[in-house]
């Protein structure tokens, strides 16, 4: 028999209870710290590997904008590549053979002429004068200068040949090489050349797609939720609809892609690879993810508020519009934004409708051909050029930043609309 009144026994019990509580706390802390460390590790490794993509080595060339290459009256037809190459050649008078010249040209990026072209088109009076301009080097030279390609390896084991090294070293000696911020990453569309490939096309594609998704799924989702929660009688049919909506939220997203392909593209003949179709597909996917939290937000409004409004003679619509909807708004917005954030990170349904595509132009409308951020990241990850490794991580950083902005907006709106009672 245990004597419960025995002080020793009670002290022992108390000690045990305190220890159990301490242990419980420690487990929780350990879980949080582990999760935090994993997150920190993940983020820091992504950010660290993305850093090289944010800068690029440029070479300063003294370019004679001679009329041999660019005619004064038609600057848009000028041979700017020839112009840049000629300027480079001037620094290396000893290079004469055709092969050597071609090797020399290769240390420059294909995009090197773009900077000159933009400059001259902007100010045609420059034709016939000499300007000093930074133009991007090729991706391999850039990697070597960043130390990502070891120049001490035997020549046969590295991409950059000894001859290229000699060219670059000479330019470096003349203090012509400088590491600059890689604006191309944020202003350009996709490219086969890593140093010219930018995230802007995919970012614009994502934003257009999300815009379509929001415009379609928010009103549909909220109205459906209002009807189901506030107006519809609770019977077998509404129960069936409810079960189906809950199931739809769990349908693998690629199924929506197949549906989009069959319905929007093959039946309605909407354009392939377009944000319009992508947005519609993602809207279908997002609908249940808006309806469910919206209904939950409605259900969470205390019935006393409804009764109060009904009690002073508000109609059903007035109760919803004046009281329930405003009070449910924080929950609705949170659900919507989380649904949109999920849609922003979705790739599988967009595979089926051709949004996983190499598209150079930045889309400017919903029917233009476009790709989206996660698809862009995946495509870069598949490219063989080493410089795409950093670009892939940079793409992830941009996607995460977008999601962070979206979530910050969610928190802001929730705070803004929140009312206490």
């Amino acid at each position: 028999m245990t004597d419960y009144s025995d002080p020793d026994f009670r002290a022992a019990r108390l000690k045990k209870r305190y220890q159990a509580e301490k242990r419980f706390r420690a487990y929780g802390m350990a879980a949080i710290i582990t999760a935090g460390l994993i997150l920190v590790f993940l983020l820091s490794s992504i950010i660290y590997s993305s850093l090289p993509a944010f800068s690029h080595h440029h070479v300063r060339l003294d370019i004679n904008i001679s009329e041999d290459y660019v005619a004064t009256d038609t600057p848009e037809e000028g041979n700017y590549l020839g112009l840049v190459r000629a300027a480079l050649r001037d620094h290396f008078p000893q290079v004469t053979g055709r092969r050597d010249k071609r090797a020399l040209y290769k240390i420059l990026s294909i995009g090197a002429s773009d900077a000159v072209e933009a400059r001259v088109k902007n100010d045609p009076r420059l034709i016939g004068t000499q300007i000093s301009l930074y133009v991007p080097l090729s991706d391999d030279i850039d990697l070597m200068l960043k130390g990502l390609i070891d120049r001490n390896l035997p020549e046969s084991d590295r991409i950059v040949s000894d001859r290229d090294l000699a060219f670059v070293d000479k330019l470096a000696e003349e203090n012509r090489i400088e590491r600059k911020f890689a604006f191309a990453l944020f202003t350009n569309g996709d490219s086969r050349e890593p140093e010219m490939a930018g995230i802007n096309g995919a970012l614009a594609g994502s934003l257009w797609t999300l815009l379509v998704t929001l415009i379609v799924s928010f009103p549909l989702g909220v109205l459906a939720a209002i009807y189901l929660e506030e107006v519809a009688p609770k019977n077998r049919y509404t129960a069936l609809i409810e079960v189906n909506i809950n199931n739809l939220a769990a349908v693998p997203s690629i199924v929506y892609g197949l549906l989009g392909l069959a319905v929007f593209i093959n039946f309605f003949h909407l354009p392939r690879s377009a944000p319009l179709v992508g947005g519609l597909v993602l809207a279908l996917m997002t609908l249940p993810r808006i309806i469910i939290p919206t209904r939950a937000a409605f259900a969470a409004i205390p019935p006393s508020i409804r009764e109060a409004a009904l009690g002073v003679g508000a109609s059903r619509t007035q109760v919803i519009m004046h009281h329930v909807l405003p009070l449910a708004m924080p929950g609705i917005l949170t659900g919507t934004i989380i649904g949109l954030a999920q849609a922003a990170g979705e790739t599988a349904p967009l595979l089926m409708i051709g949004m996983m595509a190499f598209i150079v132009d930045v889309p400017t409308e919903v029917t233009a051909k476009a790709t989206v951020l996660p698809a862009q990241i995946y495509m870069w990850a598949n490219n063989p050029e080493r410089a795409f490794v950093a670009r892939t991580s940079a793409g992830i950083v941009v996607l995460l930043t977008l999601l962070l902005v979206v979530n910050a907006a969610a928190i802001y709106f929730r705070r803004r609309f929140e009312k206490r009672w």
Partner: protein
Amino acid sequence: MKMNESQKVKIKARNVTVHYGEARALHGIDLDLNANEVTALIGPSGCGKSTFLRCINRMNDVIDGCRVGGSVSIDEQNIYSDAVDVVELRARVGMVFQKPNPFPKSIYDNVAYGPRIHGMAPSRSELDHMVEVSLKRAGLWDEVKDRLSASGTSLSGGQQQRLCIARAIAVSPDIVLMDEPCSALDPIATAVIEELMEELRRDYTIVIVTHSMQQAARISQRTAYFHLGDLVEHGQTQAIFTNPENKQTEAYISGKIG
């Protein structure tokens, strides 16, 4: 008690039955409620007194699976006939609930809500006047006149309940239904509201559900005792409390049951 004009019948309930799904909550209630009187509905929990109260402004309509039978007439008109619009009815029959439930809006907006949705105040100054009169009648004006834009939920429990009363009377109803209005309040706030009811009785017909025998005895002119969905006894409050005809009523009032 002398018969006078004020004892005109305002609400006439005949054979009122209420079903929640299969369960019957009220078994044919016949009850007359007089104008300008406070009628207290008493009885143990689950006896159907709140259900009956909610029949008078058709608040039971919004409950799924609830059916109301029989007739309830206000001023000789059956409120369950098709000719009656439930929204207009609820503007004529105000209601105050057990738990104070101000809208999470400003004090002003709480009171102004009813007049606004019924289009009763064409101008801002008239609306201001209505809000002031309603708050004065509810005895809240002096406490809140300087902070009408403060949230209604920032008031104390007793003030919130008086705000709810002001909100209910702002639409000038004939009848005010009160469903245990003081059960969430302390004795001081309760006393304030009881005084208020005595005051309001001059202009309104008041029906109150209460669990407090003392409250029923203090404030009501008539009392109806419900038990398990039946109206057991009703009459002058004094008579019910001093000389109940029914054994059950006596047992309940004297605290032997319930």
